[in-house]
């Protein structure tokens, strides 16, 4: 169930395939610092391969069981908690090591490998939802990514985790994959009112979302994806705010045709067509994904046209693609890396209608998840 490959002759598919496959094989010791993100590495590589049309569910079928070993159910029955931890060496007896991040990446990876049995019959759905619920901080509306590693009196959200919109997105996406489809269903596990007031604090004066009033394309994509997944609570902001956000997002596309910007160290005419994450920053391939996803959630192509996609595709293919090593870089002068490769391929695939940016899955895989894994 891979995506139809991205239809562009300039894509050096064979090189990207090898670049991505290398990341799933044996990695040198410098990767040990990413041990806590191992399931993210797996996800980025599997998603990247899916975007170029590789049948990953066949090629990596033998890894389903290995992935499932990262899944744990703690306790039993009505109070069980379930989720994934990031690596087999990071599970420690007596300690709570599950995380929202690993849980979402674990679920996405199993979906890429077509492990429907896991979702339909094997997973402790309520246990996963309870884990998400335990990470929730109703007093602020946000989420920690994990629990305090040693529980004192009760299980508490980790006091040392950040609680920004990335974690809220992960929590909501996990609940969606566990079957929640609207506010009343999500409301069984999270307190939506504080979550929405948390949201309102992140909405910025000039449109977009970010921390303490500074809009950021990544957080904007998280916020809009959450609204899309919850589906029936777009009313928490007025339409004018969404219009402002479309404008803010379109303004993130860098152009070399503008009046002179003397002295701006963060302007590079080579960035033309690419998207930046914030005002007066360089373009970066990953923000092409976050902005294009946000614009597509806001149905910008219907409203204002999709010309921004042409400029973005040109930038991604001509400036960030590494024709020698394979992979994509963040811009026109860095080395390629896995994260930017995955996000760039996802952006290109999304623009040809084959990728669901809200669930971060190839469209066909997302369609199955959307239609089949519904709460009982």
């Amino acid at each position, binding site marked *: 169930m891979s995506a139809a490959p991205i239809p562009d002759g300039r894509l050096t598919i064979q090189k990207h395939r090898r670049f991505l496959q290398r990341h799933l094989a044996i990695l040198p*010791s410098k990767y040990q610092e990413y041990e806590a993100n191992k399931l993210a590495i797996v996800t980025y590589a599997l998603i990247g391969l899916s975007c170029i049309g590789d049948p990953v569910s066949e090629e990596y079928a033998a890894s389903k069981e290995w992935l499932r070993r990262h899944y744990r159910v703690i306790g039993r029955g009505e109070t069980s908690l379930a989720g994934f931890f990031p690596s087999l060496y990071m599970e420690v007896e007596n300690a709570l090591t599950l995380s929202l991040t690993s849980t979402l990446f674990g679920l996405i990876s199993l979906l890429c490998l077509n492990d429907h049995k896991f979702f339909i019959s094997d997973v402790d759905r309520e246990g996963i939802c309870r884990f998400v619920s335990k990470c929730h901080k109703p007093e602020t509306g946000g989420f920690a990514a*994990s629990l305090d590693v040693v529980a004192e009196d009760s299980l508490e959200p980790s006091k040392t985790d950040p609680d920004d919109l990335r974690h809220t997105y992960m929590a909501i996406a996990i609940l969606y994959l566990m079957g929640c489809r609207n506010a009343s269903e999500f409301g069984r596990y999270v307190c939506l009112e504080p979550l929405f007031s948390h949201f309102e604090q992140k909405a910025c004066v000039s449109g977009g979302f970010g921390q303490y009033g500074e809009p950021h394309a990544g957080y904007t994509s998280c916020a809009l994806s959450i609204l899309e997944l919850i589906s029936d609570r777009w009313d928490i902001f007025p339409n004018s705010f969404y219009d402002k956000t479309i404008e803010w997002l379109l303004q993130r596309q860098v152009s070399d045709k503008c009046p002179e910007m003397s002295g701006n160290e963060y302007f590079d005419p080579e960035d033309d067509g690419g998207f930046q994450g914030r005002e*007066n920053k360089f373009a970066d391939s990953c923000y092409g994904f976050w902005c294009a996803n946000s614009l597509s959630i806001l149905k910008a192509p219907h409203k204002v046209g999709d010309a921004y996609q042409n400029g973005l595709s040109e930038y991604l293919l001509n400036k960030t693609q590494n024709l020698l090593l394979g992979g994509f870089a963040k811009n026109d002068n860095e080395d390629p890396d896995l994260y930017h490769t995955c996000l760039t391929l996802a952006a290109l695939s999304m623009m040809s209608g084959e990728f669901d940016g809200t669930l971060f899955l190839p469209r066909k895989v997302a369609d199955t998840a959307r239609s089949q894994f519904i709460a009982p």
Partner: protein
Amino acid sequence: MSDAPEFQYDDIEPLPISGGQEGELCQIMYDGEYRTVMGIARALLQKLEFSERALHATSQAIDLVPAFYTMWNYRFQIVKALYGTDGAELNRELDWLDEFTLNNPKNYQIWSYRQALLRLHPSPEFQRELPILQSMIDDDTKNYHVWSYRRWCVLFFGDFTNELQFASSLIARDVYNNSAWCHRMFVLKNQVPKGPPAEALTGELHYTKKQIELAPQNISSWNYLRGLYDEFLDGKADPAIMEFALSFTPGIFAADASDTGPQIQSSYALEFLARAYAKNEDTFAQARKAYQALSDHFDPIRKNFWAYKIRSLTA
């Protein structure tokens, strides 16, 4: 552990890291140091040991895997168990964190760990946080995490005293620093619940205009100007500000503006004007002209969007 001979771990059996499982993906070739450090830190956690040597073991583990959230949380629990709310000891922990922060500026955990320490601290001080904030900003003047942490501190300590001045100093260094402009808006929106007093607003308008004159093609200062009007002045652009904006777009609205278009200094001034003209049916013609000029000459990459704005001009 050669750099800390005072800690003995001889009685600890390191938890092994076994590789080569069936179907394993991303098989990392761990080096010897990694195996030892992780083996000991995990073994101590498994024993739930809360001790000075466990604290040291977590710092070594975090050095190797900065995103290892479990170790950060374990470390925090050790700190709580050993020091409780002893301010001097917690300051020592903050010192360790300063050092770690300087070496790992992009890490996500450092700031939330710091927040947890300050919440635990009996007498936290904004003053103590300023040097690390300063050196991190000096290192990267647009570091999003650092600015976020600063704003968290401002709210946590309820102290806005130095913030406008701080933002000004960063804007003086680089007028295009969007974080510094957002910081200004953050101060204005949060310092006084009812919004800033009239004289402060006048001062801000004056300041912003001066910065725009220095660099007219700057989206950050124009966004800020727009924000001042939208948030605090009912969104109504007055004749003085219209005239100010017009001074950067000479000739655009002349009846015989030629097809090639005159040179202007700022497309953002033109957008500002277009937005104001679009609010009133009587000035739709000017709005159309401004959007058309953006589309044709000064911001053609957003042609579709400017066409949409022209379509939206309806009474």
